[in-house]
């Protein structure tokens, strides 16, 4: 496979797919990376409140150039804005929202997802790597729905949807849905259930790129 040729949905289309599935009125935490794109694609008329775990509910878009405030940032330490009706709070309150099950949806990136919904997204466990976890373990432990948005395979073509994660876990049995460039896949009691295939992607091709057996 030519790994430079992108198949299926683009990253923006993946973000659009997630955005279209957010129920009106949801409280949502978007992780760093592709998940951040989701906010730009929420359909007109749908109101979503974004939480950023460093202490802001009601996060708005990136500020206009020159309007950045060093003390108004998101969890990725990027400059953001606050919408009218936003609130600031300290970290214990922020993680009360997360761990206490008050947030509806957490959208995260992934290194690996297992057939049982185990997630590995914080460390490759390589010697010499500096381990850093942030809020990922709290998000997957506490938020009602955990959605993963990720390329279907790694840059060098390795499986990301695997029978068992080889990287250290972020949480066990925590993922509800996986949005990749090839498909949308729900984690069910029976296994990985394909909900939607990207244009031009066959089920057989998807299965080839996925280690666990998929349900059509």
């Amino acid at each position: 496979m030519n790994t430079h040729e992108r198949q299926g949905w683009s990253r923006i289309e993946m973000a659009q797919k997630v955005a279209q599935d957010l129920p009106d009125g949801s409280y949502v935490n978007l992780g760093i990376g592709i998940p951040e794109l989701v906010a730009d694609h929420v359909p007109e008329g749908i109101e979503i409140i974004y939480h950023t775990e460093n202490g802001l509910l009601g996060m708005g878009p990136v500020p206009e150039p020159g309007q950045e405030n060093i003390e108004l940032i998101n969890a990725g330490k990027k400059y953001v804005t606050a919408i009218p009706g936003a609130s600031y709070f300290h970290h214990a309150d922020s993680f009360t929202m997360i761990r206490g099950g008050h947030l509806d949806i957490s959208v995260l990136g992934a290194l690996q997802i297992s057939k049982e919904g185990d997630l590995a997204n914080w460390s490759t466990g390589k010697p010499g790597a500096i381990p850093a976890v942030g809020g990922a373990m709290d998000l997957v432990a506490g938020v009602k729905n955990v959605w993963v948005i990720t390329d279907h395979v790694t840059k060098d073509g390795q499986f990301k949807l695997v029978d068992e994660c080889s990287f250290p876990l972020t949480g066990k049995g925590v993922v509800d849905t996986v949005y990749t460039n090839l498909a949308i896949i729900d984690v069910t009691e029976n296994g990985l259930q394909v909900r939607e295939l990207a244009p031009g992607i066959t089920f057989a091709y998807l299965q080839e790129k996925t280690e666990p057996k998929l349900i059509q």
Partner: protein
Amino acid sequence: MINKLVGSDKEAISDIFDGATVMIGGFGEAGSPIELIHRLIDLGSKDLTVVSNNTGSGNVGIAALIANRQVKKMICSFPRSTNSVVFPELYRNGEIELELVPQGTLAERIRAGGAGIPAFFTPSSVNTPLADGKETREFNGQTYVMEYGIHADFSLVKCQTADRYGNLTYNKTARNFSPIMCTAATTTIVQAKQIVEPGEIDPEVVVTPGIFVNRVVQIVKPEHESILVANQDRYPR
């Protein structure tokens, strides 16, 4: 008369002793009390255990404190970030200890430490390497891991507005860990941009009640870590 205002940042931190546990507020540079940290570098206290979400950037602030070999151990959730070079190098060389804690667990351990709660059970990190060797227990069919509260000798935080009682308000996402750190130290030391008379902060909007604060020093124009890093500034200069 109660007056927690002190004359200088140097005086405010002058009793931080070797081997102390020091909580430092901030998430990245937002809320990082950079002047207090730089005075701690001037003071030179060694073998510190530092509790802070990150390990700083460039060669200023927390990163400079680490580079000055004053920190024996970091307790944090995210010890690397853009422009973070000092900690990774020392860690790879085995010259600094790291206790990696999920961010919400770190917050709750600080909150518990301030609230007189020695330990608690959390679902975060169950079935991951960060729960290895820790006590677990089932409640309602779910597994939880026991985590200990953290209490420090000193907390260093930055706020927006303070009065002589130590009542504090913060600015935007610079609040982050500071209110809970104020509760969890024997001595809480605050740098405030603005000092007002008691009563000028509406009691309804006080974020940290003065009882949690021991010393306040006014720093009218705090330096900005990102600007110092962009200018390749170092501390000590």
